Every structure is written in C-alpha cells, then in structure tokens.
C-alpha cells in the first residue's frame, strides 16, 4: 500500500520552477533515496512534504489523506518526521531535552499538572526520561545526555537529529543528508543504523544524500532529480547505468 503519494507536485518561487510535475510513490516499509545535483530541488520537496512550503501545484497524499496546506506540526502528529540538512538542534538545551521536546506530542500530563506538580507530572516526566534515554542509547548518545547540544561534535549532532526525529514516533522519516560531513567509517555505521531503525520502528524512510556509497548501499529504489524534474527512478543498479543520470551528474561530454 502506498504510504505517500505525490501527484504532479510543483513549486515555483516567483517564476523560478524549483520542482515541476513530480510524481512519486512510496510504499509502506520502503527505503527510498532522492538524489540529484546541488540545487535540484530535493530539500524543496522535503519542505513541501512537511508543510513548510505550500506547493503551487499538484497534491500530496499521506496515509490516504491529502496533506497540502496542513501545518507542519500537525503533519508531525500524523507521523512525518524529518532531519535538517543544516542542523537545527535546540543548541542551548541539553541532548536529552532535545529528545524530550520531540516527545512532547505524546506527553501524558496537562499544563496545570505541570504547574502544580501533581502526581501525573512526576509519572509523565519519569516515563519521558526513560523513553528519551532509550532513544539516545540507540544512537550511543546516552552518556552525553546532560551536555548542551551545541557542544557535541558534528557527527553526534547529526545522530541526535535522527534520534530527535524518531522520538516523535513517525511512520515516515525524511532524512536530509544524514551523512553530510561524516567520514567513511561514520557513514558505514550510519548505514547500519538506518537499516536497523527501519526494522526496529517499522519505518518508511525517504533519504536525500550525496554520498553515493550510502545511497546505493541502503536504498531499494531511487528517484533522481535535476533542475526540479524527475529524470529517472528505479533500483540502484538501474540508476547507476542510466545515461540521463550520468549526464546530469557528469555533463554531456562524458557520455
């Protein structure tokens, strides 16, 4: 069953067509890659899927519901979570607080219980603390729980972004260049981790990445974008040998 269907999706910024007529279908449990040269419109697609931009044309259907125009936070409640290409952690907060904020939509007590410190508050906080630590453990960040997020090394900040996204309990996870700035060893570990969390949390993952070893290594299907147009899609092997993809990446001369 298609979890996410994108139909003739377009986005133009006063004349500049960032994405045009994109068709995409992602089935439940799939791990799909989205690649393309810089400025191809990949992050714009993420921003439309998460409600940051209102598409100028076409429709997005998530779990059978049309989601154009649904605000970002509601999409998060529906089960779409994302990470950011340029890391957007809550820098002045501790690592565990970052995760707790993402878990806030599942909080079990109300505002007044918090203000008056009713028993429900202590129960809810204890539960939240445990859940947040579980997420941190997956990403081996539990020993850094009390550190400020901005003081973490780059690779750990990237991992914390994924941990935070998972804490919203999504069904669709959008990863925007999760391996950016990582060394080959870290990228390999990340690859394992992505495979593992997909199985463990029953996730469907859509992934933007420039690191081809990662994309080709984990993705089952790949969409290729160039100047906002979907030029190819298929399995990693099909993509590798597709002449239009090679042209987009290396230029016409190379063929």
């Amino acid at each position, binding site marked *: 069953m298609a979890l996410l269907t994108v139909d003739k999706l377009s986005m133009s910024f006063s004349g500049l067509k960032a994405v045009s007529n994109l068709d995409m279908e992602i089935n439940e449990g799939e791990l799909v890659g989205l690649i393309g040269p810089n400025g191809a419109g990949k992050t714009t697609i993420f921003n439309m899927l*998460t409600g*940051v931009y209102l598409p100028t044309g076409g429709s997005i259907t998530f779990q059978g519901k049309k989601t154009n125009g649904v*605000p*970002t*936070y509601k999409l*998060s*409640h529906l089960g779409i*979570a*994302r990470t*950011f290409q340029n890391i*957007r*952690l*809550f*820098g*002045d*907060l501790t690592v565990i*607080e970052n995760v*707790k*904020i*993402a*878990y*806030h*939509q599942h*909080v079990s*007590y109300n*505002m007044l219980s*918090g*203000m*008056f*410190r009713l*028993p429900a*508050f*202590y129960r*809810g*906080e204890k539960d*939240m603390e445990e859940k947040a630590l579980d997420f941190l453990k997956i990403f081996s960040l539990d020993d850094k729980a009390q550190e400020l997020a901005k003081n973490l090394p780059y690779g750990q900040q990237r991992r914390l972004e994924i941990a*935070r*996204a998972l*804490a*919203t309990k999504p069904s669709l996870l959008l990863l925007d260049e999760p391996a950016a700035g990582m060394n080959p060893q870290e990228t390999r570990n990340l690859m394992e981790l992505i495979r593992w969390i997909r199985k463990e949390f029953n996730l469907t993952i859509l992934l933007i990445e420039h690191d081809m070893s990662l994309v080709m290594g984990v993705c089952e299907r790949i969409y290729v974008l160039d100047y906002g147009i979907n030029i190819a899609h298929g399995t990693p092997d099909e993509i590798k040998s597709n002449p239009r993809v090679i042209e987009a990446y290396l230029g016409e001369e190379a063929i």
Partner: protein
Amino acid sequence: MKLFNVKNLIRLLVLMVVYGIIQYLFINKAINPFYMMTLVLVCIYIILAVSQNIITGFTGQLALGHAGFMAIGAYMSALVVVRMQGSLVAGIIFGALMAAAAGMLIGLPTLRLRGDYLAIATLGLGEIVRIFFLNMDYLGGATGFSVPKTIDWTWAFWLMALSVFLMSSFINSSHGRACISVRENEIAAEAMGINTTKYKVMAFTMGAFFAGLAGAIYANYMYLIHPGTFSFLKSFEILAMVVLGGLGSITGSVVGAGVLTIISAGLADYPEFRMVIIALVMIILMVYRPNGLLGNKELKLDFLRIKKKG
C-alpha cells in the same frame, strides 16, 4: 507525593527563614515602613520580572506591554474590591484573570509578528491600556483611584513565592520545554510537532496573568493607583530587570528585580539620577556580562546545603 522532596523542603525552609527574619525585624521596628514598602515592591517586581522572562527569556518573544497587563490587573482588582465590595482574594483572582484574558486576546494576532514588530505592537497596546484607564472616570481617570490598603508584607511575600513556584514549575515541565524550543529554533520546533503559535500564546497569557496578579497586589497595597504609573517606562524597567538578571534564568530575574528595585529606592531622594544610574548599571553590565548576571543558569541552593552541613 514527590513534591515534598528534600530539595523542595529546603527551598520552603529558606523562604520561611527569610520571611521570618524580615517579619521579626519589622515587628521589632528595626525596619522602618519605607524599607518595608521597598520590600513589598521587590516582591511585586519579582513577579513582574519572572513573568516577563517567561515571555522574553524563555519563549524568545520581545514583548513590551507588561505595564499594560499590570494596569489591567490593578484596575480590575480595584473594580472588584472598591466598586463591587468584593473580597481581596476575589479581586486579585479577577484582576489576574482579566489580564490573562487580555493577554490571550492581544497575543493571538500580535504573536504572528516577529522581533521588532512584536515589540512595537505590544508597546502600542500597553499605551492603549494606559490611555483607556486615563479616560475611564468610573475608575478614577486622570486623578487616580484610591483603593484601601488590605495587603501587607505577608501577603505580598507568599503570593510572590507561589507565583515564582508556579512559573518555574511550568518552565521545567514538558509544556515549558515546548516554549523554550520556540526560542531555540522555531522551524525545528514546528517539525517536531510543537504548535509554536499555541505555545507563544500560552506563554504570553501566563505572563499576562502574573503581571495582572502583581498589578492587583500593587493596587491593594499602594492606597492609590494612577494611570501614569503604568507607562511604557514601567515595561522597560521590568525588561531591564530581566536582562540584568539574565534572559532565561528564573533566579536571575529574582536577583535583577531585587537589585534594580533597591537601587531605585535608594535613589528616591534624587529622582533625576535614578534613570541615569540604572542606565549606567545596564551599560556596565553589557560590557562585562552581556548575558546578564546569571546568563541562562539558575542559582542553586546546593551551596547552602554544603554550608549547613559544614
């Protein structure tokens, strides 16, 4: 339940000791009424500064209408107590609730604005409130409105303690963290499922509620309330306290409110120097501690515990 853990009991004990010492000194006439008034003002300003900090320091919204909410609390409680012969408690609750209602009403449209625009809009709204009461002859208008003094130091102190407890509990709960995430990164907060508009309005309403409470205490302590008291300079004074103590620090606001109120009282005989000195304090602070006295850290009681043991 766990509300009465060791830490909180020590906090309560410290509060009772502070209260007891001051009350003892007052009864034995070691503190004259002028200093007593200053201490009550410190309590009022602590509530104002902490509530402003909820909006500005924690939620990151630069709102400058706090004097307006204080005025609503003051006048509405006076309305209940004087015009409707209601009880003091009813007056305080009504004043605070009306201020909160006004905060929510004003917050819904204005909190869509960002940065400077929000500051200007709230500044204007604060002035509108002041001018409204200036022209409201039923509540005294330009001559001021006299309210019997029914609040004493005990009331002010314990209401302050309760307010600070409630606000710091809020900020240290999941809902408070949601507010802080708005300050930290609005886009990420939205993506993590935080309805940022809702939490901005929530923080704003709560700030207004406690500003109204402070206004109600002020009205029932000061014999006379006058629209001129609630001008935008008052809002700036409150913001100065928050910045002095540190944006994002509850105890910082307490310290900031205490320091600035006491400086103001000390300079009561030289009113022309008051603003100069306050400005000077702020400039020196900006040079040496740009994040305020405490930054975004909290003053902990741990060091007291060690001292007691040793």
